[in-house]
């Protein structure tokens, strides 16, 4: 597998989930903030999006474990590389933890886990108010932590893109720019294993390593 960039399906999932996750965090704090009519509307969309995000996270983890990730930039300090690695583990963990906590919380609260009218998930915990209270707090606190981590993630990505001007942002992007070569035409250079769907992005060429990616040359 290449280490020049993420698998195209991971790039697509990254941006789709980025949009959904951020929306979800805004919806979440928004619905907590009001007893107005918006509350009912936000609550109604919170659960189906939450379930969708859980399923997408499962798919993403499976693909990620099979296709790997680009190597870290060894010119970065060890501390920074360590923090980057850990932050990604936390991001993945929260992608699973938040929807599962929401599901468990509703179960413990004795609520029907209604995803959409007439579509229910089974309860995954016994009805227990103390557990409900604990899970409800955890759901809220971890959501805030998730937002903080995402801000850090965006900040770090922008530092790579705008200040270090390295290939980190490109490894998750769809552009086919290269620091040395002029942009190539958009078709004809797709790697064989990337030929699915509409989002195949060729792996950008770069100047950083041993690049075993003949199709991109």
């Amino acid at each position, binding site marked *: 597998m290449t280490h020049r960039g993420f698998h195209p399906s991971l790039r697509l999932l990254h941006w789709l989930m980025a949009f959904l996750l951020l929306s979800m965090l805004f919806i979440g704090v928004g619905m*907590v903030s009001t007893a107005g009519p918006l509350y009912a509307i936000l609550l109604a969309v919170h659960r189906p999006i939450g379930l969708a995000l859980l399923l997408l996270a499962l798919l993403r983890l499976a693909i990620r474990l099979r296709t790997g990730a680009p190597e870290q930039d060894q010119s970065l300090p060890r501390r920074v590389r360590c923090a980057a690695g850990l932050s990604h583990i936390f991001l993945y963990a929260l992608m699973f933890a938040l929807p599962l906590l929401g599901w468990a919380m509703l179960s413990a609260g004795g609520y*029907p886990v209604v995803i959409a009218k007439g579509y229910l998930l089974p309860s995954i915990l016994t009805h227990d108010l103390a557990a409900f209270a604990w899970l409800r707090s955890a759901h809220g606190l971890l959501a805030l932590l998730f937002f903080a981590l995402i801000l850090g993630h965006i900040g770090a990505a922008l530092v790579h893109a705008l200040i270090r001007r390295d290939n980190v942002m490109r490894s998750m992007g769809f552009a086919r720019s290269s620091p040395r070569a002029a942009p190539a035409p958009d078709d004809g250079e797709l790697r064989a294993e990337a030929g699915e769907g509409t989002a195949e992005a060729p792996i950008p060429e770069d100047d950083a390593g041993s690049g075993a990616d003949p199709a991109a040359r």
Partner: protein
Amino acid sequence: MQVPKPLPLGSAITIAAVLLFLLAAFAWAAGWIGARRIDGAAVLSALEYNGGVHEGYRRAHAKGLCFRGSFTANGEGTALSRAFALRKGVYPVTGRFSLAGGNPLAADGRNVFRSMALVLRADSGEEWRMAMDHTPIFPVRDVASFVALQRASKPDPATGKPNPAVMKAFLAAHPEVKTFQDFMAKNVLPDSFASSTFYSINAFRFHDAQGNETMVRWQFEPEAILKGLDKAALPQMPRDFLFREIIDRVNDAPVTWQLKLVVANAGDVTDDATRAWKGPHHVVSAGTLQIDEIASEADGGCRDLNFDPAILPDGVGLSDDPLLAARSKAYSSSFIRRAGEKPGRGAFDAHLGARSVP
């Protein structure tokens, strides 16, 4: 690699701006900055301001007990909604009788809401939760008025009544509350939960199997004959007379109500619970609620439930009534708060021989 360059100021500012923008947008969405919103906590603090803090109990309708029974649908209601509970059949019911107010040990001798909350269950796991009062109308239209009412009607410890000057100013701004007060003053105060009609308060959207929409308010009409209480004698009544009465009555024989679905006429308001629907209406009799057993809060399976009237089955949806979201939110906040507290002992736990009295 490139030669190290000085920090590009423009890029640094761009990054800071992006992060600050996201943070500010998040803070705004959360209501931490910008115009003040009424959230669940604001409703709870208004209720606690009015009725005192009673940890471990519902912040409203704190005094109550549980019951079990069934709803037998005759199938007629399917003309209005495809909801499971209206299809011909028998559905198990858990419920709760309660009186308005935040004090779980308050005296029953008050001219306040008698309430019945229900959860109807389908085999599929679908539920229909209802929280109903014995009045067809509610005192206020929306959450802001509800909070204002709680604040204005706080009983003065000296007189036990709201401060007249505060209340007068509030009523001047909220004539709809006067309508409700007049209703409570003139109308019969039922002598039993069993003889009370319980109303959905809000209108709901019903959808039939073809997707046709109807606006409906519903009510459970009692089989028991309604007798009024002497309102002047209320303060002299035994503290728990109303609850003792229903315990004894159900111990004797099951108690029943008929579910009546009232279809809105063209001119009826469906987004304002302070306004009654007047005149003749098309009414569908949908089935019979029977209560077989009264149980303590601790054992009856109702204490740890949130009777959120927005938990609805397929075929029933929220109307545009802003009070529905407000009730849903306030109940949810109250539920979250008391879940974190040790559950309070129900007024009748000992009397009903609760096994798990905390």
